[in-house]
């Protein structure tokens, strides 16, 4: 229910500045826009050995969009982004938004599953991540 959407954990992720901005050495950039609301996520990546080892971001959007972006950036800080981890991110989002199993780090986003109009907010960073991964593949 919407009562639970704006939990402290979600708000904290939305305000998390740990990975905001372009990291040093970032040569890759990808952007995703939501044409319905105008929200925008830009991801910056540092590539090494065919994967992204560091990622920064700027997100102009709602709490849900910003929090999802911050959680993705935290994941990449722990485990590099590659085809397998990107697929896992998408799979985790699919499950969460279908009301299924929720990965531990995605728990603050779980209430958004009840709001189909917010699903695009949850996924916007993933769209940008797809672009970033395409840039790695093309590099």
């Amino acid at each position, binding site marked *: 229910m919407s009562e639970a*959407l704006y939990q402290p954990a979600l*708000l904290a992720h939305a305000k998390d500045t740990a990975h905001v901005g372009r990291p040093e050495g970032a040569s890759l950039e990808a952007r995703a826009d939501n044409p*319905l609301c*105008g*929200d925008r996520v830009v991801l910056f990546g540092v590539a090494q050995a065919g994967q992204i080892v560091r990622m920064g971001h700027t997100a102009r959007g*709602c709490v*849900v969009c910003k929090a999802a972006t911050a959680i993705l950036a935290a994941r990449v800080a722990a485990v590099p982004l590659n085809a397998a981890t990107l697929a896992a991110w998408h799979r985790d989002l699919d499950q969460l938004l279908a009301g299924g199993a929720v990965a531990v780090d995605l728990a603050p986003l779980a209430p958004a599953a009840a709001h189909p109009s917010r699903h695009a907010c949850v996924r916007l960073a993933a769209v940008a991540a797809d672009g970033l991964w395409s840039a790695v593949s093309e590099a």
Partner: protein
Amino acid sequence: MTTPWSADFPFLAVPDRLSPHYLDNAATTQIVRPALDALVRAEVELRANVHRAVHARGEAATAALEAARSAVAAAFRVQGEEIIFTSGTTHAINLVAYGWGQRLQPGDRVIVSALEHHANLVPWQMLAERRGIELSVVPVDEDGRLDLAAFEDLIDHQTRLVALTHASNVTGAVTDVARVVAAARAVDALVLLDGAQMARHGPPDLEALGVDFYACSGHKLFGPTGIGVLWARRAVLADMLPMLGGGSMIRRVTLSGSTWADPPRRFEAGTPPIAAAIGLGAAISWLSVQDHSAMAAHEHALTERLLEGLRQRQQIRVLGPRRGRIGVVAITIEGAHPHDIAQVLDQHGVAVRGGHHCCQPLMDRFDLDGTTRLSLAPYTDAADIDAALAGIDDAIRQLT
């Protein structure tokens, strides 16, 4: 709490209705009972195709559709053959941009404004690309009104059309149509008004307004969805090209070519939205007999109640002028995103709209990602406004 118009709106009688405080009327108003009744009757008692059938049901459907056209024309004080049923304002303006605009040449100019809904901007951008014409933009002042002094400097003898909103769907500002028409007439330019937001405040007197095109939508004036109106002067329509080809819009078809029917059927290819058009006729007939002064006073009083409440909350910025506005109020709250604000208001049963409202150039003008918009209707009451203000307080608490 009820208003003098509450009894005419069936949604208010639904127990435990969704979004009980409905303040998203700039996007879609609720349907008025005569329109709903007409819609149901058309689908149950009159459902048949129009203009061709010789059977009684088809004849009755045709008569009802044409009666709806006449009702709209009477309310707008124009001729029935000048009323074209469209799917809505967007379709209506595209029809003009294609059917009238296709005759423009490089060197011709169309003037729009930074206040426009995308529906009255993108079709002209597409036309500019197709025909190589110039598209000029009237700026917007700090109060969210058209800068008409700048408009008067901009308009010249190359200007063929001025396409402006009658009232903004974001700032609520009402356009000074007389001033626009006077400037346009001085250079023999035509004037199109996007009436999507204004028409529900009482059917426009098109004779008095003196414009050449008017577009509006049924779902924004208490009618069905999927229906709208384009009005244009008979002589202008006669010179326009059809946008869609097919059944009903032809005079004669051979394998080597086709000729077009006279307006309005030239612009209504295929089976029209018959029941929706009949419902729209009923909605406009209902609207035309209401006490428009009382409606305006009701909306003004509640808009002032809302604005006063907003002024008491420091983090809030209100777009739009103090005077010369309709009950459409767009706000921003420092540190909170419009979608999040709208979501918190939804927890309070208050339906509002968050986002750019299909006005991205206007958002750019004010350096905003979006706004939260509250929009009123005759069935809005003080409890709706107070619920919205309570929800806004909660949004400030939760999000900032």
